[in-house]
């Protein structure tokens, strides 16, 4: 189908197909405008003065006002720099945790034979559908009982699950990937005297890089945007991550903070934008092959 439209087999009606493709382009450009409008408006508003936010309905400011960024950065008792550091730390450690723990589990599911493997695999698939909201109350109680909520290092409740491969989605993704690695490689390594650990270390680990990169990118972006768990587990202002800190602007409800609020919103999306630009192709490939959602 794809090929046939590049070189139409029937060249009898070039006129019509050309006007068709123009029509399609126009429709697509209109959709692009709708899709990008909120984002451009967000950036435009972030550099408008308070007065202009109310009066100027245009996308872009008449006068460029970068002051919203400095105001927003220090709008609360704790600077946004701290919130960004907290978010970066949580996100990066989550990446490490997911990559390591999910890879280990995936190798077991995809390549090793052990008792009850099918049962465990079915359970893993079952947890894919389990909403976070169902577990949040008892998890909160458990972590609180262990003294980890608001403890010396308040991020443990956010990170411990990530180091225990609870993000079943990534386990599943890696299992699917590893099934594509030729079994002959395992056999060859086995003949060379490698055991399960050797095969993991010398065959699977190096070949799993694409799956690891996909996992890393998506777990970074998701954790960076994640809100629900961070809202529940973080209670000290200085421990807040960016999404939780952003809600402080809503709490304050002072209309004068719209500019700074938008400025911080723009900054908070910046890392995701950077990842998007750098890995656009991979992100799109990633979802269409595995059903990852944004």
């Amino acid at each position, binding site marked *: 189908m794809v090929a046939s439209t590049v070189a139409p087999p029937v060249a009898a009606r070039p006129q019509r197909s050309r006007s068709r493709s123009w029509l399609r382009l126009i429709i697509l450009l209109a959709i692009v405008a709708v899709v990008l409008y909120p984002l451009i408006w967000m950036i435009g508003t972030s550099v408008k003065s308070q007065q202009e936010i109310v009066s100027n309905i245009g996308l872009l400011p008449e006068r460029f006002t970068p002051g919203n960024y400095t105001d927003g950065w220090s709008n609360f008792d704790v600077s946004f720099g701290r919130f960004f550091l907290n978010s970066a730390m949580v996100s990066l450690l989550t990446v490490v945790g997911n990559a390591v723990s999910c890879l280990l589990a995936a190798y077991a599911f995809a390549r090793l034979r052990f008792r009850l493997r099918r049962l465990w695999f079915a359970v*893993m*698939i079952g947890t894919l559908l389990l909403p976070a909201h169902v577990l949040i109350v*008892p998890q909160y109680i458990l972590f609180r009982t262990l003294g980890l909520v608001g403890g010396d290092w308040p991020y443990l409740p956010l990170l411990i699950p990530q180091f225990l491969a609870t993000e079943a989605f990534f*386990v599943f993704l890696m299992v699917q990937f590893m099934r594509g690695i030729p079994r002959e490689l395992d056999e060859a390594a086995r003949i060379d005297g490698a055991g399960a650990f050797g095969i*993991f270390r010398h065959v699977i680990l190096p070949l799993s890089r694409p799956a690891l990169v996909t996992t890393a990118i998506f777990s970074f972006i998701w954790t960076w945007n994640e809100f629900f768990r961070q809202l529940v587990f973080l209670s000290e202002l200085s421990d807040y991550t960016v999404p939780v800190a952003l809600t402080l602007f809503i709490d304050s409800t002072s209309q004068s903070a719209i500019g700074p609020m*938008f400025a911080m*919103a723009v900054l908070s999306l910046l890392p995701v934008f950077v990842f998007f630009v750098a890995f656009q192709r991979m992100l799109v*490939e990633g979802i269409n092959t595995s059903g990852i959602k944004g």
Partner: protein
Amino acid sequence: MALTTAPDPTRRGTGSVRPPATRRGTGRIRHGEGLAGYIFLSPWLIGLMGITALPMLLSLYLSFTNYDILTPWSEVEWVGLANYERMFTADPSWWHSVRVTLRFALIAVPLKLAAALGVALLLNRAWRGVGLFRGLFYLPSLLGGSVALAIVWVNMFNREGAFNSFLALFGIEGKPWVNDPDWALETLMVLAIWQFGAPMVIFLAGLKQVPTELYEAAAVDGAGKFRQFVSVTLPMLSPVIFFNLVLETINGFQGFTAAFVLSNGTGGPIDSTLMYTLNLYIAGFTDLEMGYASAMAWVFLIAIALITVVFFSTGRFWVHYSDGEDR
């Protein structure tokens, strides 16, 4: 590698999932491999037991108590089915949150999927720049769940927001949409539909799998474009439609962030954005009625499980698998 050969996604998602291949041999366990298997599996197993299974059991137990985190465990009272009874018979806001969630899912999910399919059909040609469009349309899905974007959305549909400025161009006077109980949820629906990019990419992958010969054969039989769409595209795409439908419905039920931001955590105006998960959060963490919140969580889980079962049992009437396997 495996990631880039996009076969039938429904097979991989929630459908019948084949366990890892054991084609070779008869599933004999190699010497020492059983132990290695459990060693590699141990982080996941510990997580399963400690982070998932134990909390689920605890949650089930709590749902029969009046636990509120402040009273010591020794004084926690077993209240039997009182939480469930209250939910179904004495808590209008619970019913309200069920209605809000259903309304959200029933309207936003079909529209989102329709938008995703429509745009996927437009993009299903190879020409220069198609990748750029695909990427741009996917961007909202990537940003969609963030607090930052929810903040932008709320302000866009304010009285002075961009949407009313747009309406003003046509001489239409807008209203403060997000403060109007009749419209607040609709603005959240628009946000959800705006993120059509993720299902769109999955539709695109599905469209690539439809054999060209089918269209040629249909054209020979005199089928027009519309007829081809109904008789070839839709049936061939039905597994992908099914996959997107299940996933988006379950996602739709879990909408939390935008509703939280819009209402500052209250579900307002006048409970119009009281999504089920937001209601659960308020019960557990604002009102500290954790026993009650646990009961709500279990009803939620059972509802989602039931909906999934309904999807899968009705799916066999309209989902066609090209390999002829009727399931």
